[in-house]
């Protein structure tokens, strides 16, 4: 397979997931599009250097996370004090889930997603979000969180059961 074909295949496989991942964090369509463009340009520039022994999804996730971390770090000095206080959680990469759910509650209350997830632990929320909202499969989530595929599957099903109880 030529490099072009390989890259196109890779792009089509991952663009939706990466976009959801970024958009969930920043909640701004234009900003998310800019960030995703930059991430894929980076991926293209280093596509030849990619180590085949590693998972491509993990590699892409690492690039995405690093790019977002740099973005929040560079953005900080230009923010107003109010905006900084408001986005305090958002700037922290560890708090992405909390902020994303908060934003989802504001914008998409009719889907009751935040209400559904509110009763879960942070780990379970993360698993459900990654699988049901971003579209990552269990094996990929296992690579991100350092668990086996089966363990992720079991944990996600338990989280769903928990959600059902709380309805």
């Amino acid at each position: 397979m030529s490099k072009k074909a390989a890259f196109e295949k890779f792009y089509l496989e991952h663009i939706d997931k990466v976009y959801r991942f970024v958009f969930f964090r920043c909640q701004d369509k234009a900003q998310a599009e800019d960030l995703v463009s930059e991430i894929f340009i980076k991926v293209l520039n280093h596509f030849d250097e990619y180590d085949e022994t590693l998972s491509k999804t993990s590699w892409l996730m690492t690039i995405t996370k690093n790019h977002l971390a740099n973005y929040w770090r560079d953005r900080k000095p230009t923010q107003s004090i109010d905006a900084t206080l408001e986005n305090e959680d958002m700037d922290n990469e560890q708090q992405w889930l909390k902020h994303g759910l908060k934003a989802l509650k504001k914008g998409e209350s009719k889907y009751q997603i935040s209400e559904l997830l509110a009763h879960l632990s942070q780990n379970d929320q993360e698993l459900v979000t990654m699988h049901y909202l971003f579209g990552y499969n269990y094996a990929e989530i296992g690579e991100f969180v350092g668990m086996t595929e089966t363990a992720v599957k079991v944990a996600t099903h338990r989280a769903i059961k928990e959600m059902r109880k709380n309805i």
Partner: protein
Amino acid sequence: MNLHQRYNLLRAKWALAPSRQFKIALLRKLTARMNQPVAWYQVSWVRFSYTVVSGILIVASVSASAYAYTSPKVVVGTPLYTIKQGLEKIEEKTKVTPEQKAQFLLKTIQRREAEKETLERDNKDIEAVENQIESVARKLHQVSDSMASTTVKSDLQHEVVNRLEKQEKHWANRQEKLMLHQKEVEDKFKEESDKISSSSTVKQTDSNESEDRSAVETKNNKLKIERESNTSDYIKSDSERTQDENDD
């Protein structure tokens, strides 16, 4: 999970998805970028080799400078000597107080002497180095005068005085050697002139010898003038110093 929940999650997933236009536009942009020919300086191995070469150059220049600065084997006439002198000039400019200057000049004299030893070992001309030592010693003399008016470390002053005394002795030896050499030249000249006067047979040879004689005389005069100027300079500086000491 019931159907309603599943539907809600699915709708949320759709809401987070990118637009079709964006996906197509980004893919076009990336494909166009991929088709662009890469400039030679953007090729990874070229960039890597640039980094390596510049790293090697930096390390080489730093180590060459360090070697030139510290090694007594870097003497007049070697390619690194210019770097050595440049570094010494810079170092000299950083010295502000008379004490610092004196310490630096003492160090410089030691270095020049080490260079002189190297030159002597290699049977090379030491005239240039000796002149440099002379000039540094003169500077040290001036600095020691300014040091005398200030409260300085006695060790340093002692060292400076010792060095100057040593330099004076050296200078006296040099003068003595110069005078001996002068005397030898004069004796030789006398012998030659005697020979010339005794054998006045052919005029042609006479004229040639007179030319030789005049050449020897000129050389002799030059040496004499040089010697007198050196002596007067040194006597002058010495008398000034003695005057200062008396004043103190």
